Every structure is written in structure tokens, then in C-alpha cells.
């Protein structure tokens, strides 16, 4: 029978189907970070359990590591915030005690867990991969079945190498056509979320396909899958093709020699069959997508840079009117105000959505030879990993940013969720390449606008949102 990519991955990892409708699914790779793991390790210890298969696990601290060179100099002991320091130290201690491989704070391979996995080849096509973080959907870009789990499930995977799951439904997002110049993967996924809403993908594994998706680089595909969860889907997927294989080959954790050949033979089958049945299909025309800017407090509150902030009086129903009103109130915006008139206080380029080399290149191209607006308090560039940082520096991107007035930081999650010192002040507007614009996400009372790296760089220079298509 014709199968979707999700069906194939599910079948390959099914250990046992239970009578009650749940299934035991085998987990190939488990990524860990400091925030959602301490209670899981504590649980193992209390029950006297050991990790089932040590080599499946890979850890790195990312969420609350500082990003200034000064604070990073002394490693863990130099972290000024005591509670953050204890959490990072606890990850080190747990990994040591249980024998788990960890890229520690000052290892060049350290970084945001969803940047590190693919970069190391620890994320491979055909895998099941989980992590105690909802943006684990990112890894689906490799035709891997990847999703976020809670801490109880982190402990469950450590102890049993399995998860108790129910099969999801299949959703296909078909994006055909050619993107306009200056429009990127981030704009595609924001447009998708704007179209189907933050709960549009709930209960589904969401596969992205179509010519606009297959033309994307792996970085672009990761950006798209990363945000599947913002449309409610725990799983995002893209089929495996030559672009995938070219990216994976030669990475430290990728198979070599004979095993590589064997792997490739299987991986080439990792796509939905031509006549596979999806429970729901949504189609978008890539050529019509404009650069996106979110204006509200949910990723579905998003629109073209050339649009106006919506008017609650024109909402479809009472619930929508209420949520638009409260969003405008929190964001300090007026109905019918032009998006391009929103003045910015800070700009953040980074996060697991947009901190890979291609993202930094796109932002640097815009920033080159220009200056950050004097009205801005801060413009931050935070690479996703030590290796991304190194590569960017080899390409001279750091110099471009610094000359333009951006700060060039050490790798970590940083202002994406403001668990470290990088945060917004109350009422401040930020153009951010991250993935969530929830209230308080980037700092207490902070106001987040989600955009692509090129749009963020252009906004930093103008001091307000501008259509980056008019800049090239």
C-alpha cells in the first residue's frame, strides 16, 4: 500500500503495537540539554535505573549559557547567575555520572542542540529522534521522525530507549512555485502558520513538499520544520533527496564506507509515495509569499511587511476579537497602523530557527557597508554553535556585523527565550529571527516581532521594518 514518509518512519520503529491503541516506538537518537533533563536524571537515580543504550544520547548546554566572551572565559564557573550555573553544572555532573557524551560549554562543538545534532551528523535520515524541547521538529528536515518530549518522557527514553505513542494523522503542506528574491524559508513557514493557525497542525505529522521546498538548502528546510510546532504539529518532515545526502556525508557521526552505501540505499526510499493518502492537504503558491512580520502575541498573528496591523472590529468572531484586542494592547500597537511604522528598540539574529551559516550570510549581505540605526539600543548576532561561529569568522561575517554596529556573541539560545542575561526590557519592540512571540518570551513585558534574518538585518539598519526586497 502507498505510504507517506511518516508511515514509513513509524513502521520502521514500531517495537510493539498494544491492544489499547498505543504503540511502543524505538528511539534512535536522544539529545539532551540542561533545562529539561535534571529531573529526569534524578528520576533514574531514585529508581536505580541506568540509560538503556548510552551511545544514543548526546548532550550540550544551550538554554541558559551566557553569550559574552567575558562571561564564557571561565567556563561553567564563570556563569554569573547562580541558578543558571547550577543547572549547567548539573548537566555536566549527570553526563559524567551516567557516561553520556556531552559538548561542554567551551567545546567548539557546543551550541543550540538543534544546530549541533545536524551539524555533527548525529541527526540522520530515517532516524527517530527526540529531545526535551518542542523545537525538535527541526530534525524532520532530514526525513527523520523527530519531536519534542516532556521531562517524564526524557526519563522514559533514557531508561527504555522507547516511547509510548499513538500514531498521528498525515498533513501535507504543498508549496510550489518560485520564491521572490529576498523571500526565504522563514517567510514560507510564517505564511503557513498565518494560513492554518497555531492549532492547525495539532494531531498531525506535517510534511512539507513541493518545488519550493525541494529547492531549499538543508538550513532552509530546518527553519521550516523547526516551526511546525508553532502550527501545532509536533512533527515536521521533508523527504530525503540529494541535498540531504550531500549535507550529511562526511559528518562526524554519519556512517562511513560500506555502511554509508547501505544507509543511502534505504534513505533514498524516505519520501511519501506518489499516491500516498494524506488526511489533509494545504497548498501555497511560493511566488505569492511576501516577507512576513508577526504583529501579535501568537505566531499566527502574522502578515506581510506591507500590510496593516489588523483591526479587531473586523475579526471573524468574538474569540478572535478578544485575542486580537489583548494582543494589540500587549504589543502597544494601533489597529490599521502600517507594519513598517513599528519602531524597534532591539534586533536579535539567532535561535534554533535562524542561527546557521546561511542565515548569518543572508543577514551579513544586508548589513554589509551599512550601519545599525542610532535609535536602536542593541542589535545582537548569536551564532547557533561554536562551529557556525568559526565558519562565519573564516568568511569574515563577524567583521561585517561588528562594523555595522551589531554585537557578535558566543553560541547559545540567548534572547530567544531570555533565560540568560540577553533580554528585552518592558515595552521594548524587537525584530527577532526566533520562533515564538508569546508574552514575556524575550523578557518581561518585551514585544517580539518574528522575521527572517535578512528582514531583521534590514530592520536593524532602518530602525523600523522595511521590505528587504527593495534593498537588493
Amino acid at each position, binding site marked *: 500500500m502507498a505510504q507517506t514518509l511518516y508511515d514509513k518512519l513509524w513502521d520502521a520503529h514500531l517495537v510493539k503495537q498494544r491492544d489499547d491503541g498505543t504503540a511502543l516506538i524505538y528511539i534512535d537518537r536522544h539529545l539532551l540539554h540542561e533545562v529539561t533533563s535534571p529531573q529526569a536524571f534524578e528520576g533514574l537515580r531514585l529508581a536505580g535505573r541506568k540509560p538503556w543504550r548510552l551511545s544514543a544520547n548526546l548532550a550540550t548546554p544551550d538554554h541558559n549559557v551566557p553569550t559574552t566572551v567575558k562571561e564564557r572565559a571561565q567556563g561553567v564557573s564563570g556563569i554569573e547567575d547562580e541558578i543558571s550555573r547550577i543547572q549547567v553544572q548539573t548537566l555536566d555532573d549527570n553526563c559524567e555520572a551516567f557516561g553520556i557524551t556531552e559538548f561542554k560549554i567551551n567545546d567548539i562543538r557546543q551550541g543550540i542542540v538543534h544546530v549541533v545534532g545536524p551539524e555533527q551528523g548525529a541527526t540522520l535520515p530515517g532516524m527517530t529522534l527526540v529531545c526535551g*524541547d518542542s523545537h525538535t521538529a527541526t530534525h524532520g528536515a532530514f526525513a527523520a521522525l523527530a519531536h519534542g518530549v516532556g521531562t517524564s518522557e526524557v526519563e522514559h527514553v533514557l531508561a527504555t530507549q522507547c516511547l509510548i505513542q499513538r500514531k498521528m494523522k498525515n498533513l501535507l503542506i504543498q508549496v510550489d512555485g518560485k520564491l521572490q528574491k529576498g523571500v526565504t524559508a522563514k517567510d514560507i513557514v510564517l505564511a503557513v502558520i498565518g494560513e492554518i493557525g497555531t492549532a492547525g497542525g495539532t494531531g498531525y505529522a506535517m510534511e512539507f513538499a513541493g518545488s519550493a521546498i525541494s529547492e531549499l538548502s538543508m538550513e532552509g528546510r530546518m527553519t521550516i520544520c523547526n516551526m511546525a510546532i508553532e502550527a501545532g504539529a509536533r512533527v515536521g518532515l521533508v523527504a530525503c533527496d540529494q541535498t540531504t545526502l550531500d549535507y550529511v556525508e562526511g559528518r562526524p557521526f554519519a556512517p562511513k564506507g560500506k555502511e554509508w552505501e547501505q544507509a543511502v540505499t534505504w534513505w533514498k526510499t524516505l519520501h511519501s509515495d506518489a499516491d500516498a493518502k494524506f488526511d489533509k492537504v494545504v497548498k501555497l503558491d511560493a511566488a505569492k509569499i511576501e516577507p512576513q512580520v508577526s504583529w501579535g502575541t501568537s505566531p499566527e498573528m502574522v502578515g506581510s511587511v506591507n500590510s496593516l496591523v489588523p483591526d479587531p472590529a473586523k475579526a471573524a468572531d468574538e474569540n478572535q476579537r478578544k485575542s486580537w484586542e489583548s494582543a494589540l494592547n500587549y504589543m502597544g500597537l494601533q489597529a490599521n497602523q502600517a507594519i513598517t511604522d513599528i519602531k524597534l528598540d532591539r534586533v536579535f539574529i539567532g535561535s534554533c530557527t535562524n542561527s546557521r551559516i546561511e542565515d548569518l550570510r543572508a543577514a551579513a549581505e544586508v548589513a554589509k557597508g551599512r550601519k545599525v540605526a542610532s535609535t536602536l539600543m542593541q542589535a545582537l548576532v548569536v551564532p547557533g554553535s561554536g562551529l557556525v561561529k568559526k565558519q562565519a569568522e573564516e568568511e569574515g561575517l563577524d567583521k561585517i556585523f561588528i562594523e555595522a554596529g551589531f554585537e557578535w556573541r558566543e553560541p547559545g539560545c540567548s534572547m530567544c527565550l531570555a533565560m540568560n542575561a540577553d533580554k528585552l526590557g518592558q515595552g521594548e519592540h524587537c525584530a527577532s529571527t526566533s520562533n515564538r512571540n508569546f508574552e514575556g*518570551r524575550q523578557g518581561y513585558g518585551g514585544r517580539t516581532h518574528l522575521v527572517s534574518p535578512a528582514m531583521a538585518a534590514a530592520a536593524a539598519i532602518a530602525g523600523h521594518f522595511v521590505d528587504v526586497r527593495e534593498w537588493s
Partner: protein
Amino acid sequence: MQKFTQLNGLVAPLDRANVDTDLIIPKQFLKSIKRTGFGPNLFDELRYLDEGFPGQDATNRPLNKDFVLNQPRYKNSEVLLSRANFGCGSSREHAPWALVDYGFRAIIAPSFADIFFNNAPKNGLLLIQLDEATVERLFKEVEATEGYKLLVDLPAQTVTTPSGEVLSFEMDPFRKHCLIEGLDDIGLTLKDAADIKAYEEARAKVTPWIFA
């Protein structure tokens, strides 16, 4: 894990759609390495007028009097009534931990986000899905009646209103069993250890690089 069978609990209405996990428990509190103690910071940004910090004594912080949980009539509520897509956002299990630590035992909403839906019952928190119209009606009843309680019966999968109306809800049989018995998933899965080993052996021939 605390067992769940029956509960006759006071209901608090949180009239808001898409209640996200950042709202339930803001990130600064995720720095804790413990599972408990999150209750005072549940809905921190809505509940207090100032910014909260981990480790701080919350008893003297300025309260937002307008926030529903700060109203005396909802003190000691055990059932939270809310709107669609409750628990969206991050995978943090700190969200159910905070709700349970505060004293909630059950949440009623028209829909829940996937990861939260998985996390909550593992911590003894029952999620009850009722259709939009019923939820809307419950909101009206709760707001109109001080001391409004709902009788939740998990074995029977029903919610009974003060007027005696009985509402049924759907429940995954596996989750129901675990909640009623207070069972730990890991212990259950380890009963299948032989199946897991057999899977690994067979799979190591097909995808040897996974087991290297």
C-alpha cells in the same frame, strides 16, 4: 504519581484561548533542577504586578487583583476551565508541575496542545476535553455562581454540574488506567524489555550505523 479517581472541585475560569506554556510558567523558573515548588509562580506574569525571580519569597509581591486566581471566590480551586489549544508552546513539563503544585487536579478545555496533552497525565493532572458550546455554557455558570463545583468521575468518564447535568468525556484507555492506578510508564514499558531487545537485534542488521 498521585492517583485520580473522583474529585468534587471548585472551578476557576481562565477565559483565554491559546494559553501557552510561557504564560503558565515563565522561563526564569525553569532554572530549577527540582520537580516541585513551581506553584507560587504559576501564571506569574498574570498573577503579580511585578516581575518574578526564581528563589524569591512570593508572599509579599503585589498581586494583580483583576486576575481570576487572585479573587477570593476562586481560592483553593482544583479544576481550571479554559479555552481552545490550552498548553501550546514549549515542551516544558514545568507547566503541569506548576499547575499541580498550585493545587489543580483537572483542566477542562475544548482542545489541548499535543505535547502538553502527553505531559499532563504523567503528573496526575486530568485533561478533560468538552466541546466549545459546553465549555461556553460552563463559563457562564461558573461566573454566575459563587462556590461552583464540578464532580469529576474518571472511572465513569463524567463531569456532573451542580444542577445534576452529567457530561461525558472521551479518554484514552491507557492514560485512564495509569491515572486511576497512579502507574509509572517506565515500569510498564520495562515489562516489554525482551521485545525491545529483539527489535534492536533485528534492526542492527538493517541499520547497523544506529547501533555503532
